């Protein structure tokens, strides 16, 4: 028996204080989970690369467009997307350059948020996680914090680096982008808030559907496909409903603090922000309820 006692001397440990979970410990656990997956790091890298790449591409595109429309005096009729005649006023567009990649990066970051919870269920990890934390909700709450922080941080930093890359490109076309200006910072921050909201929606969908593919498809449909379909159909109902999609609500929110005239295709900025918040609250709220009630 002595060899057995030796072999299993670590089966039992000296009983220290009965330390249990608290929210900081759970946050720490979720941090280890988040960072220990290669797929997470790859997705984050892809999202960052997209942000920077699109900013550079957009700067180059606007630069060449600006140059070509300036050369023949009088310029091309119709002007830039900002809608002015003559020499296009690209200032509004310039402000959006740092955040140009958001519409694609949001899909990657949103999918990552879905996977944070849906992979727990698809791999069986959930049984380990929720056996450790039988109250369950703090696990989702910790994940939500990381998802939101990563969504916000990556979008903001990605946009900032993208802007820094775009500035010299624009300079070569005699265009100037002031990264410190209010308009640029305003859009970068609002985009970062928007992507944080997208990650929370993704997390909510992942926890509700517990299926990675299903939740990602639903998220993409909500963010991308449905608004496009509704934009194509020219009926008042669809036009009106379209305002309430997360993406369009976010577009409305992006006008907050802007000097440009309000676009009637969108809600008021504060309404947009509320609609976006409603998506987050409803999906996450349903996720918390489902997590509490359903068997793991």
């Amino acid at each position, binding site marked *: 028996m002595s060899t*057995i006692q030796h072999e299993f001397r670590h089966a039992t440990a000296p009983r220290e204080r009965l330390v249990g979970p608290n929210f900081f410990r759970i946050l720490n656990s979720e941090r280890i989970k988040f960072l220990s997956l290669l797929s997470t790091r790859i997705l984050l890298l892809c999202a960052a690369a997209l942000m920077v790449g699109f900013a550079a591409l957009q700067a180059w595109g606007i630069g060449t467009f600006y140059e070509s429309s300036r050369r023949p005096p009088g310029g091309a009729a119709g002007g830039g997307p900002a809608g002015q005649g003559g020499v296009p006023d690209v200032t509004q567009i310039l402000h959006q350059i740092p955040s140009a990649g958001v519409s694609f990066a949001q899909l990657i970051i949103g999918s990552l948020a879905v996977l944070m919870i849906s992979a727990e269920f698809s791999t069986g990890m959930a*049984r380990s996680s929720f056996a*450790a934390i039988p109250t369950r909700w703090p696990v989702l709450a910790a994940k939500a914090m990381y998802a939101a922080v990563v969504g916000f941080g990556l979008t903001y930093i990605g946009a900032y680096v993208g802007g820094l890359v775009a500035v010299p490109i624009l300079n070569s076309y005699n265009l100037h982008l002031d990264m410190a200006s209010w308009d640029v910072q305003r859009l970068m921050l609002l985009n970062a808030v928007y992507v944080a909201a997208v990650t929370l929606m993704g997390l909510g969908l992942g926890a509700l559907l517990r299926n990675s593919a299903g939740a990602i498809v639903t998220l993409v449909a909500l963010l991308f496909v449905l608004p496009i379909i509704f934009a194509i159909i020219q009926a008042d109902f669809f036009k009106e409903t379209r305002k309430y999609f997360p993406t369009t609500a976010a577009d409305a929110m992006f006008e907050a603090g802007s000097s440009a005239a309000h676009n009637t295709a969108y809600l008021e900025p504060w309404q947009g922000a509320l609609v976006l918040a409603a998506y987050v609250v409803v999906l996450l709220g349903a996720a918390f309820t489902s997590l509490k009630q359903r068997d793991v």
Partner: protein
Amino acid sequence: MIQATDLAKVYGDKTAVDGVTFTVEPGRVTGFLGPNGAGKSTTMRMIMGLDAPTRGTVTVNGAPYAKHKAPLREIGALLEAKAVHPGRTAFSHLSALAATHGIPSKRVHEVIEMTGLGAVAKKKVKGFSLGMGQRLGIAVALLGDPQVIILDEPVNGLDPEGVVWVRNLVKYLASTGRTVFLSSHLMSEMAQTADHLIVIGRGRILADAPIQDVIEGQGKARSRVRTDRPEDLSRLLARSGVTIQAPEHEVLEVSGLDSRSIAQIALDNRVLVYELTPLQASLEEAYMQLTKDEVEYRSDAAAAHVPLPSGSEPDVQASAPAQEVSR
């Protein structure tokens, strides 16, 4: 200690666990035995608070699992191998779980070494064999040095050395006063490991007794009799409550009558008996006896046209060669 009271779980119209009441005592290895789909895993998930009972309660060390301040230090469980994200290493997996309870990394290294995962701890779980997955699951179960250890089919996929290792481990844990609850479909393994047995079939408890009682309680006293006049002896022994089979030429297997009475009857009637051996049922046999009705019901339900074996006596008949252990 684990206490289940009228614990039930119903999925739709399927009753997985049908009001079971049992206690798993500390200081011994309690085996949880039952056919596939009998409700073993569901019961274990309910103990761990992963599945909510439809009815009844289950407590661990006096409180529902979710009410404990430090759950991993109350119960450690291996519910199924590879309840792990395959993209993580064994070390990260253990570290993440340890972090929830502020368990120091020294302890993570200890359980890795003890379960023999040292060489693969930094490798992704994706590439683990079933046996390594089991060892990781056992490492998780021991991580918080819990008072109660639940292992669902722990020897599945383990090599013979691993099987012996698990057997020694659970016996050691029980010897330190811990509660060990172990499910297995390997009856021979149970016979060697468990002190106490809870047998479950179709969601109901069929037996809850020390393992020796389960074995003895099922086999009615049976004896093997070799005689040169089997027909005559059969006639002489025949009475109500006595079953006689003739598995071989000149061999009778008699149940319901003890060896001494058989010898007396043979002597009184001058029948030569050249072997008279009391037989003890093996655990396997006892288990088959206990779960027979449940299993029959199941296969019957699956293929309703298959006729039931005739005869009201539910004894194992000669058609199924029984494995005996000579006393």
